[in-house]
């Protein structure tokens, strides 16, 4: 064979993978994909993954590729994967990984938002509001509202030196600190709130976080 295959099909234990050449012209790629998708030899294979290698795959291109692959009716694309992302996407991901630090008092009527984790050094007063896509850690008193995992992350937690919030939210679950919960946390010192497997927000000792959410640790390396 003189010409490099533009679309190669590989069977793996995770299912079929269509590997798309990342050097050829995009139009050639679509054309070849169309042919391969119609190939009667593929009959019966249901789910495929598509790997685009070092070719950046915009939302528009992804739609086009999926449409062509699925047009024959016997293939379904479960996922498209590319080795490259835009700077914008990269920055967003970095931000989500980062933690932002706010030093000060979050007072009544004020709001502090973070795209990743949020560290507050100071108090969050009643009717003050902190929220983060990641977890919230407060070195001080949390007496207002806190919303962790505000983009849906159910693993996010809210930890505070003094956890006396009026409202706690994790992902889409909200808890107002009713009398019952207040009793639960009669000693509001050094506690953390997390989403229990029963779907409700639970409060435990800060020290238990290592067992409840070991995945939150980002510390790498020696002991």
């Amino acid at each position, binding site marked *: 064979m003189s010409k490099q295959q533009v679309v190669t099909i590989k069977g793996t234990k995770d299912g079929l993978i269509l590997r798309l050449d990342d050097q050829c012209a995009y139009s050639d790629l679509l054309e070849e994909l169309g042919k391969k998708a119609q190939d009667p030899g593929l009959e019966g294979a249901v789910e495929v993954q598509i790997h685009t290698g070092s070719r950046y795959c915009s939302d528009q291109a992804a739609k086009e590729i999926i449409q062509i692959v699925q047009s024959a009716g016997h293939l379904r694309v479960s996922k498209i994967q590319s080795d490259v992302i835009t700077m914008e996407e990269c920055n967003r991901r970095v931000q989500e990984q980062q933690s932002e630090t706010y030093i000060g*008092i979050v*007072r*009544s*009527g004020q709001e502090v938002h973070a795209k990743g984790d949020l560290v507050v050094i*100071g*108090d969050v*007063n*009643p*009717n*003050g509001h902190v929220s983060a896509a990641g977890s919230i850690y407060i070195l001080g008193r949390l007496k207002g509202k806190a919303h962790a995992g505000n983009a849906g992350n159910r693993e996010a937690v809210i930890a505070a030196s003094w956890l006396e919030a009026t409202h706690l939210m994790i992902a889409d679950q909200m808890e107002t600190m009713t009398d019952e919960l207040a009793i639960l946390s009669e000693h509001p010192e050094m506690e953390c709130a997390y989403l229990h497997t029963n779907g409700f927000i639970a409060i435990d000792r800060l020290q238990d976080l290592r067992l409840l959410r070991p995945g939150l640790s980002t510390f790498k390396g020696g002991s």
Partner: protein
Amino acid sequence: MGEAIVITSGKGGVGKTTSSANLGTALALQGKKVCLVDTDIGLRNLDVILGLENRIIYDLVDVIEGRCRIQQALVKDKRFEDRLFLLPAAQTTDKNAVTPEQMKDLITELKRDYDYILIDCPAGIEQGYKNAVADRAIVVTTPEISAVRDADRIIGLLEAEDIEPPKLIINRIRRNLINSGDTLDVNDITSHLSIDLLGIVLDDENVISSSNKGEPVVMDPNNPAALGYRNIARRILGESVPLMSVDTGKPGFFGKLKSLFSK
């Protein structure tokens, strides 16, 4: 060049006007030249507390709109020779009669002639511009949860402005309630608000009767609320005065007050 201090609060009726009148008077008693500016447009009462009501000819808006010169509008408190003046609030109902720039120019002009300009504000959060014209701010609260919450809100707004961090006055402290634990105590409030305490003022019925007489209570050296205001004035002047005790449990509270004054 004088210093402009805005006296503000979140909740109304906590004692801004009373504090302005008494601190202005106390600073004048200490020999400073003071101008009180009443910006509570439509609801003036600083003049009444000072007993100057029937001497008003022009007001703040008259000055701003060029109907008179500042000097013509200022009302002199004759008890203090040339040391205490009032610029009365207008009685109009148009709260927006004065723009931030106009206010700034006015205060800058007053700062040339006075050591202290105390600006008595309306309550609430919608008059931020009057804060920015000052060099520093005093937030007044009472020891009630609702007043402290609203103080927190206004402190947040003040901290976002280009002035020194605000300081706190806790007014109307009732000793019997503190001793019985039925009210927030001074420590509760200052640790909640995390700002410096400028001083405390006891609740005292003479505050009301002396206001009605047009003679600020601070002029009576034996009154316990007056002591609070005198101490605050001394702290404004930079003296370090220990916080007075609110505890009545100890005998000789008034004796201690007297000894402080006879020093």
